């Protein structure tokens, strides 16, 4: 009865049918045949974004972005507030997973050749989303104001300072002063909770609009796409495919809670601008770039490293072959594999550099370039 009244109320005022039709059409739009579990990576990214927004809002209730209070308030969230530890850990793990999953989503798009005409713009927006996710990680990492965060940010902004002409300006802009301090915290905070979330939100909206509007890509070569298949046989997005996405979401939820409980992030010590810890490293997702920087003189290094995102954005305009199937485009897939391997290689080198590791009972000390040197007469050997 009430339902009917509400319906009627809207019918009297809006062209409900007119609005409903395209929505329904989008919702039930059939998906191509080759849709697999890999195609849930995109909605997994979306799920994580929503999770980050929700947990982020909860954290904001207690977080205070000042030098004196940031660390203490995070500590308060982790110790005193009910379930605060859970929200902080889910937020921290969610950030790491989001970067990994957005990357995998990009990789899937690359392998299936979905970025090709007419979907170049979707790819460009996607790469921007990936870059912004990384910036999200970078700005969020500073907010607990602990030692690791403080120094990783100091080093990170220092890198920006090496850019020719605008470097010093950029560094000062990022830090809001000559060194990382209260101003930096405010800036990063505003970026992290206001600018980036909204920017990401609208970009995601645009990305999704493009995906829905142009439809999912098939594996057929560019220009040879078959016309709409029999709609009765295809899998509609709703409700069929959404059920599959649901499975993935529940798994992600379980995974986030499990990681948060079994492998929580330490808060560490409060930031101390007067004592630099040994071997400061950025978060794992910046490690490959960070390590590559070491091999070049500062300026060249910046140039080389900034080539990477540029190439990524412009990739659809370089790779213009018509084939989509990975086996039919050996060159671009080879390039892709090489890039992944080198990311792994430099990432691992970056990880072990300036540290001590025990491999097969022997202790090795890795220098700044990640080259191992065996430690003789080590007390434990």
């Amino acid at each position, binding site marked *: 009865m009430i339902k009917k009244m509400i319906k009627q109320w809207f019918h009297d005022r809006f062209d409900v049918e007119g609005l409903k039709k395209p929505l329904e059409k989008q919702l039930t739009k059939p998906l191509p045949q080759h849709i697999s579990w890999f195609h849930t990576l995109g909605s997994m990214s979306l799920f994580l974004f929503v999770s980050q927004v929700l947990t982020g809002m909860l954290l904001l209730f207690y977080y205070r972005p000042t030098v004196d209070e940031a660390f203490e308030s995070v500590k308060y969230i982790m110790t005193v507030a009910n379930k605060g530890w859970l929200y902080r850990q889910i937020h921290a793990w969610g950030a790491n997973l989001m970067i990994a999953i957005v990357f995998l989503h990009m990789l899937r798009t690359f392998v299936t050749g979905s970025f090709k005409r007419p979907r170049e713009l979707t790819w460009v927006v996607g790469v921007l989303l990936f870059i912004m996710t990384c910036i999200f990680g970078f700005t969020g990492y500073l907010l607990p104001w602990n030692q690791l965060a403080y120094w990783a940010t100091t080093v990170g902004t220092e890198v920006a300072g090496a850019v020719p002409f605008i470097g010093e300006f950029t560094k000062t802009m990022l830090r809001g002063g000559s060194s990382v301090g209260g101003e930096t915290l405010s800036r990063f905070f505003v970026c992290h909770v206001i600018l980036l979330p909204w920017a990401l939100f609208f970009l995601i909206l645009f990305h999704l609009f493009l995906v829905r509007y142009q439809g999912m890509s098939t594996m057929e070569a560019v220009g040879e796409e078959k016309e709409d298949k029999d709609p009765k046989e295809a899998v509609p997005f709703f409700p069929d495919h959404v*059920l599959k996405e*649901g499975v993935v979401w*529940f798994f992600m939820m379980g995974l986030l809670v499990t990681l948060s*409980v079994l492998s929580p992030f330490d808060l560490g010590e409060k930031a101390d601008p007067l004592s630099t810890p040994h071997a400061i490293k950025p978060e794992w997702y910046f490690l490959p770039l960070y390590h590559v920087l070491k091999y070049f003189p500062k300026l060249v290094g910046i140039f080389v490293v900034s080539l990477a995102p540029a190439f990524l954005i412009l990739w659809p305009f370089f790779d213009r072959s018509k084939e989509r199937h990975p086996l039919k485009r050996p060159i671009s897939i080879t390039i892709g594999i090489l890039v992944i391997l080198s990311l792994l290689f430099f990432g691992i080198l970056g990880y072990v550099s300036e540290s001590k590791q025990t491999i097969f009972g022997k202790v090795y000390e890795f220098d700044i370039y990640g080259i191992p040197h065996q430690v003789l007469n080590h007390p434990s050997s």
Partner: protein
Amino acid sequence: MQTLGCAINKLVKRPINVTFFFLVLCLGFILASGQRPCQAETLAESSCVECHSDIADETKGSIHSQQAISCHHCHGGDPTKEDQDLAMSPEAGYIGVPDKRQIAERCGACHADVETMNFYGIRTDQLARYKTSHHGKKLLLEGDTRVAVCSDCHGYHTVLPVGDPASPVYPLNLPKTCNKCHGNEKLMAGYNLPSDIFKTYESSVHGKALFEKKDLSVANCASCHGSHGAVPPGVKDVATTCGKCHVNERKYFLESVHAKAHAEGKFSECISCHGNHGVQKPTPVLYEEACVKCHEPGSQAAGEGLKIHEALRKANEEFEEAEGLVRQASIEGIFVEDESALLEVAKSDLVSMAPLQHTLSTEKISGLETNISSKVGEINASIQNKRENLKRRKLMLIPIWIFVFIMSAALLGKYHELRHKKKKGNG
């Protein structure tokens, strides 16, 4: 009158400088007694320098040259006379190199004079004390010139203030200064004194604190023996000497059963257990070693000692265990602020056990030990509770995953059902 005018003249000409003011006043006193003419008071104007410029250089920087105390104050003579023979004639009071007895007198002439020293803020009892010291008695009563006199410790031409780190009597240097004589085996043999005390002291808890940690407040030779009035403290005085710094230890000792034995002269407070020059950082092992020096092993008294020993050992062990637990928990990522606060209280009790044990009261000591035990128990329970909480979080994962699997199964079931229906519908 002329001399006073001279002093006033100087005063008016210069900005008021406190040292200078004292100097002028001091000069005024000396001059008023008619001993010295005004114009010969600075070294530069002294005729001594013409020949003894090397010594004049030596005295530069010394406290005396800064205060314009020059050659003739110690050596006599008249520096205003240009003629060498006149200046260094016995008539002018010239004495040459003063002998030890003269040194004591010469130094005392100023340093024992309240009026002279008043403005420097330096005490004037050094000579009086020296006379009571073994050094002073040997020199002044027996004429033994091998003993130490002022210059042996303070130096002569280069005398520095006691607070100057280069001074031989600066706390860090004092033990070595004493050792110049007291480490001389031949010399000490004549007095039946040991010559290895420096070595013993160096390895003692005091010596280590002084030489390794540069802790100037620590006991050096003079702290116990006195400086100018150097005598070894007698059996009864030892406690007073040690008690200057170890206030509570002394207070508690006086409550102990040994206080009576001490009063009767049968027991040397402090030293009986701790020794003197070679005193080491005490450990509970002392109860095993020191008690049996007087008490039969196995006697009731020795047993009491062992009981205290046991309580101390237990308290230490419990505290260390709790400390380790808190550290471990913080490594595990547990926040341990409350436990650290409790640990602080337990530590306070543990540290206060050290002075308290001088009462030798098993009751009091085991009282503290019980306190520590209960604090440690609280810490253990609290950390255990936090660990349990973490474990409970892990257990919660099981129902969560069961739920995830149920939901996944339902969703997939629904999915296949829909597919199945569609195919059927088509078929």
